[in-house]
């Protein structure tokens, strides 16, 4: 599963970690996040994310 980066603020979503505090379990792929999910750092929509290849 790929990591994804928010191009607005640089936040990186790591599916291996998830966001347990926000109810997103480790192992949740970015594609499986709800469509109305927003970046926890800046509030941008999913469309502001790209696959992170670093």
């Amino acid at each position, binding site marked *: 599963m790929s990591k994804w980066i928010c*191009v607005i*603020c*640089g936040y990186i979503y790591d599916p291996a970690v998830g966001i347990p505090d926000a109810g997103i379990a480790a192992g949740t792929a970015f594609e499986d996040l709800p469509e109305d999910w927003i970046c926890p750092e*800046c*509030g*941008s929509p999913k*469309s502001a994310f790209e696959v992170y290849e670093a």
Partner: protein
Amino acid sequence: MNDTASTAAPAGRIEIDARIFNPYSKDYIREPDPVWQTLIRDYPIAWHKDLQMWIVSTHELVDRMLKDNRFSPYFGHWEHAPPPKPEDQKNDFDKSYEVGFFAVPPKDHLRLRKLTMPAFSKPVMAKIDAKIRDLIVECFDSIGDAEEFDVYETLAAKIPVRAIARMVGVPTNMEDFFHDFAVNIIKATRINLGPKEREAAMQATLPGYAHFREMIAERRARPEGPGDDFFGSLISASDNGSQLTDYEILSVIFALITAGSDTATDLHTFLLQALLSHPDQLALLRQKPELMENAIIECLRWGSFGKMPFFRFATEDIEFAGQQIRKGQGIGVNIMAAWHDPAKWPEPTKLDITRRLDGNIVFGAGAHFCIGTYLVRVQGSLMLTEFMKRFPDATLADGDGRIDYEWTHHNARRINRLVVKTNVAPARKAA
């Protein structure tokens, strides 16, 4: 205040005036929280008759507005903006501003962010981190064994602008020139200033733009490539064959300066004022340095150093929170008040570096989230770490640091005197 003639209030419009919110008043600058609480409680959104703009003040409404792309930060959308210039009369300021982050539509804005992201990437930032650390150590070295020092003069006035100058490769002997460029860039589109003052500020930016255009040309001409530092990363950035133009690169510098130089001056004074006036929190940070990032954000929220709200402009007629906002009207997004909204932040005037800050909007929200956020955190963290190491027993001189403000600052509740007693010399003598 804007002297545009006001007409009778449209039916149902909630209105306030300078008796409720006067950002220029000394009482407000000294102690803004009572004003914010009034706005939050009684006027979450209202038309300000003297400022001739809407003022939005609760966390919920500010957050919603910042994420709504119908409200643009582009000054050209303002109903009182000067008419667009003919193409042959546009100068470098005009050309870079109109292709920049604040001006372009959301789709182009996303493209700019994608192209810019490599310049803010971890490897580039790691190099800048080292340069900033050295600069901060130099500033503290200049204090030596002094019994007292002024945070504004010694740290705040020097670190941010020099940090950005180093980031974009400005030599040390041009830092004053760069500082003036930064201040004038910000003033050139402030709608709380008059047209003559904006025009004068805009004209004063032109030598700076000329300097950076020369730098871009020189980097592009280098046979070995533009380099892998911040500036070089902007030049070589590419996304599906698309690259940044010269004016887009200038617009990124514009955004970086707006976000990270004059504004960050207040970071250092307010961080130290917050922590030195709460010794228990400073002791906790020293004990648990892993709280550093949370502490910086909480100190910024607590101190809320802005004076004027962020500006947005309605790109169409919009009904918002029960009020009718007309296309072109200005909106003061009162983000500092939102940071003190008790509905979001219980006991908002309490400084608590362990506070859960989920959903905070200290660096804004939505598409125009602060691009300098990483720099701010790095600068603040390096400064505080060095301060705690050198002056573990420091206190504010005479209890309040003999605090004073630059009352006429165009944007911030600028602290321009905060004296710290180092308590170093007595300890050494005692030893």
